[in-house]
């Protein structure tokens, strides 16, 4: 469980994920986690719900590769990515990224890196149901920029 991923329809429990990340671990002095949620507005459109699609098989492979890359760049003790798929509503949790390390610097950086790469590499697609109809979410240039800054 030290480095693991999950792609699932069901919700996740942040407390439980945290508990599992640090279970039996006395070395990790730093834990950083990020939770992404469905917000009610996107590009001035009212979002009612969204459906999240992915490419089974490739998604898991890419998420594992992203974890491996983070592991090679920073001194991490454990890391976990959980990403939901299917129908999600406003305020629902979408994604969990958790990282533990001896000191906070590595945990903070790795968590940001994982999210930036997940957003630009992992094959997920959002389709929003808005007041203006159903719309596929467009690629965000800010996300692309955020991901590029990690290029060595």
């Amino acid at each position, binding site marked *: 469980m030290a480095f693991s991923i999950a792609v699932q329809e069901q919700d996740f429990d942040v407390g439980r994920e945290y508990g599992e990340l640090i279970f039996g671990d006395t070395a990790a002095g730093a834990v950083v986690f990020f939770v992404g949620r469905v917000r009610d507005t996107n590009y001035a459109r009212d979002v009612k719900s969204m459906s999240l699609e992915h490419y089974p098989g490739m998604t898991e492979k890419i998420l594992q590769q992203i974890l491996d890359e983070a592991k090679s760049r920073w001194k991490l003790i454990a890391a976990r990515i959980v990403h939901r798929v299917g129908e999600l509503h406003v305020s629902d949790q979408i994604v969990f990224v958790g990282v533990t390390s001896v000191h906070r610097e590595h945990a903070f950086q790795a968590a940001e890196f994982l*999210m930036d790469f997940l957003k630009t590499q992992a094959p997920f*697609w959002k389709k929003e149901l808005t007041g203006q109809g159903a719309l596929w979410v467009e690629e965000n240039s800010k996300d692309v920029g955020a991901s590029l800054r990690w290029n060595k």
Partner: protein
Amino acid sequence: MIRVVFLAQLREQLGAAELDVPVGQIKTLADLKTYLLLQNSSWSGALSNPKLLSAVNHAYVKGDHVLADGDEVAFFPPVTGG
């Protein structure tokens, strides 16, 4: 056979989720696209979108790529998860 998979908005635009294509003369990703367009001329707009990404056997590929019998090729728009 080569398994071809279309995802997300591209799947809706083409009205197809997946199809099996006989290898025949198809040696590369470019050959496969040419074949798909010959079979379905109405796909040219959506399939020519320069932003489309491709993956062979669940790994991203850029530019042209050699294909083999049994490969799974996916075409999809830029990803928007997280």
